[in-house]
């Protein structure tokens, strides 16, 4: 066990947000709780069936395949989308959302399949490979069985798919009230241009997931998540690119998206949705994983006891002796991780972090340390496997200790750690044309003269419900009307003393100015564009953001999606200049 002193040291390295005040005013390391005292997650008494770890290969999601425009009937309707003709779609896609049988592992009972929500037969869904300057159009069909007809009983067969954190118009953003029910479809137009046409606003690793009012947590957990990657002439998806401006990051089969979800299963291998309770029901012949009979459901979060990567429990992945770009994403619903790549399950190997929340940093950060990743946080990491020998095994390792009662992080580090997946180094030396660039994307300039308003948002907990500024989400109420073309400074404050909140705001990236009154050190991990704030208990984070290019409704919310559903979210709008409030 790492000592508390070490923890403090590591916590300081990982970010000031980890350090929070206890009630007594003493500084303690804290990554935030998911549950309060006194709850026992059901996996303590009824753990998911065991597996032999590292015996199932990693699932590599196929790329989404475009269809001809003529495959869309009726055709795309420009009258339904802002600035459609300025950003004429060049590629078209149809995605079918359906109930699927998904094998999380080769061992029984998992090999018989777990009823899940998926896209065209898979979860995570197909990876969208997109290029700036090549707008795309995605029609999503709801072919889920209507209520009462499906095998997944606890999720709602209705979706509103959000591309996190795409720069898209409100009507294509996956606003939570923009849902499509069984037998319905929704058209999404992705214009593929950087915010304000500013080249420093180019993003790289985005993802898509369900955002349905009241049922986001269940529906994402059931399987509605996938990757959406954006490239341009610098991050060009070509490690052999002859363009001198190109970064030549590892590409193609060496560019690997990895999404983490922790899941709980019953003895038949069916997924259990259980807000910490005991005794999940066996699914029986009907195939329902269903609720575990227990009064200890909470709105605090959902923690599973099986670690999955790309919806495979503890997979292995054969890697060549060269560099890889690994895109790590915490898909939630609620668990926090502190991750590193290790050989011995403990000691971090040297890796290069090149992006935070999907945005390439000004320069890569070489680290031999653990890094915190909260729900919806993303890091692109270059791992150079050429320094290992054939047969070496590297583990993606989590050291953040969950409390025995499942309430969240203890603030201590695990010994032994959780091993989430294994990289098996194979073969001899290979040619590796990819590079780790010295410089990548500068931060957009912060110009305080653009600031039109400053706002304060206080996150708290009242009577079993999660509030922002004392209120619950109402999609019919505009909590902030932001004038298009202006900048604002937002202060996010966590008045709760137990919970950590990963707070996400849609549409534009922001830049953190201060964490608990202290400026972000230049060159650190937070010295970049972000879209998820790690708001630990008692934390206060101030950021600068711009709002441009479109009008309409968007949201900010807690990305512990169980908190979001109960109902820690606000609606904010982009409005005409002069009409803000």
């Amino acid at each position, binding site marked *: 066990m790492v000592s508390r002193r070490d923890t403090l040291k590591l916590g300081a390295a990982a970010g000031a947000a980890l350090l929070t005040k206890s009630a007594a005013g003493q500084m303690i390391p804290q990554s935030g709780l998911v549950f309060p005292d006194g709850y026992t997650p059901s996996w303590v008494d009824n753990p998911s069936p065991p597996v032999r770890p590292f015996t199932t290969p990693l699932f590599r999601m196929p790329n989404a395949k475009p269809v001809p425009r003529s495959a869309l009937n009726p055709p795309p309707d420009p009258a339904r989308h802002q600035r459609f003709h300025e950003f004429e779609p060049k590629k078209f896609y149809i995605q079918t959302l359906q109930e699927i049988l998904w094998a999380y592992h080769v061992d029984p009972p998992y090999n018989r399949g777990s009823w899940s929500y998926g896209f065209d037969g898979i979860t995570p869904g197909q990876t969208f490979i997109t290029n700036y300057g090549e707008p795309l159009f995605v029609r999503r069909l709801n072919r889920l069985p209507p209520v009462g007809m499906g095998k997944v009983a606890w999720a709602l067969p209705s979706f509103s798919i959000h591309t996190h954190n795409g720069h898209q118009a409100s*009507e294509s953003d996956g606003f939570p009230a*923009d849902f499509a029910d069984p037998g319905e479809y929704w058209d999404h137009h992705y214009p593929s241009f950087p915010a304000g046409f500013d080249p420093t606003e180019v993003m790289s690793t985005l993802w898509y997931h369900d955002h349905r009012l009241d049922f986001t947590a269940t529906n994402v957990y059931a399987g509605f998540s996938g990757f959406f990657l954006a490239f341009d002439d610098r991050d060009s998806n070509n490690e052999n690119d002859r363009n001198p401006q190109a970064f030549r990051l590892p590409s193609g089969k060496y560019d690997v998206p990895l999404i983490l979800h922790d899941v709980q299963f019953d003895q038949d291998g069916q997924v259990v949705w259980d807000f910490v309770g*005991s005794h999940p029901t066996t699914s029986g012949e009907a195939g329902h994983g269903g609720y575990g*009979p227990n009064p200890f459901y909470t709105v605090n979060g959902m923690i599973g006891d099986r670690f999955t990567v790309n919806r495979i429990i503890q997979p292995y992945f054969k890697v060549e002796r060269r560099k890889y770009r690994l895109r790590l994403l915490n898909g939630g619903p609620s668990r926090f991780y502190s991750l590193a790549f290790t050989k011995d399950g403990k000691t971090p190997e040297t890796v290069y972090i090149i992006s935070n929340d999907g945005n390439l940093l000004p320069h890569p950060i070489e680290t031999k340390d653990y890094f915190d990743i909260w729900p919806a946080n993303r890091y692109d990491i270059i791992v150079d496997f050429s320094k290992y020998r054939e047969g070496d095994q590297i583990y993606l390792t989590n050291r953040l200790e969950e409390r025995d009662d499942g309430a969240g992080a203890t603030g201590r580090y695990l010994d032994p750690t959780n091993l989430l997946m294994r990289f098996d180094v194979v073969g001899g030396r290979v040619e590796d044309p990819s590079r780790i660039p010295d410089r990548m994307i500068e931060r957009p300039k912060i110009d305080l003269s653009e600031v039109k308003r400053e706002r304060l948002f206080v996150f708290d907990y009242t009577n079993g419900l999660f509030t922002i500024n004392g209120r619950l989400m109402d999609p019919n109420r505009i909590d902030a009307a932001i004038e298009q073309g202006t900048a604002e400074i937002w202060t996010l404050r966590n008045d709760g003393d137990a919970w950590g909140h990963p707070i996400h705001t849609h549409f534009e990236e922001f830049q953190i100015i201060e964490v608990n009154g202290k400026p972000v050190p230049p060159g650190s991990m937070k010295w970049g564009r972000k879209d998820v704030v790690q708001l630990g208990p008692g934390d206060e984070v101030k950021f600068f953001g711009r709002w441009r290019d479109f009008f309409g409704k968007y949201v900010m919310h807690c990305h512990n999606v169980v908190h979001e559903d109960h109902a820690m979210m606000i609606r904010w709008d982009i409005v005409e200049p002069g009409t803000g409030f």
Partner: protein
Amino acid sequence: MNDRRKFLKGVSGAAAGLAATAAVGAVQQGSTAKKGAKLTRAKLYGRAQLPEAMVETMDGKRLHLYADLIRGKAVVLNYMAIDNEARFPITAKLVEIAKKLGPRFGKDVQFISITSDAVRDTPARLRAFARKMGVPDHGWQFVRVLSEEEGAVLAMRLYRHHRKPDPHTRLDAMHYGNEPVGLWGLFPSSIAADDAVLRIRSILPGGRSDGEMRRAGPRKLDEAGLPFNHRVG
């Protein structure tokens, strides 16, 4: 405690034959173990995994909340207190929602309002209040839970957290669920009635997903529609 034992004995007959029941063992440890142990003795029923509670309706009838009013139905459940309605008019909102649900109200979905002020809100007072508010005669029950302990277990299950129903609250949510399916959600009581109607409809059976697809949205930019979404119609 004796009352509770008797009560549990009484419902055990009613519970027989339900698809899934379980006596939950006390597994809690630590400072809240006592509270936890008390609650873990509750039996939970059906896919919705709700506890049972004996209630008195506004007509003075004694019923089992789960077995008589929830089992086999789609319901909207809320807490209210008559003395709190002037400042927190949750019942007025529900009356509006019921009207907008049209013929589906009372047929496909029932409302159950549970008073959090069981001492003051007697059946006679609840009956008079319902009449005053224009609550429809069928499809909506106002009830008070007779046992404080059962009330606490119920509130905890619904809010999924230690929570006593607060008769002075200014912030609350309505629970909506489809009991036979096991599908439950919750929406803030402050949302628009049109919004609530859409959410309630979404948990009701019906519709097809295998025929010709209908456009849900987005609607045309210049097309009239609800202010809180981009759906068609």
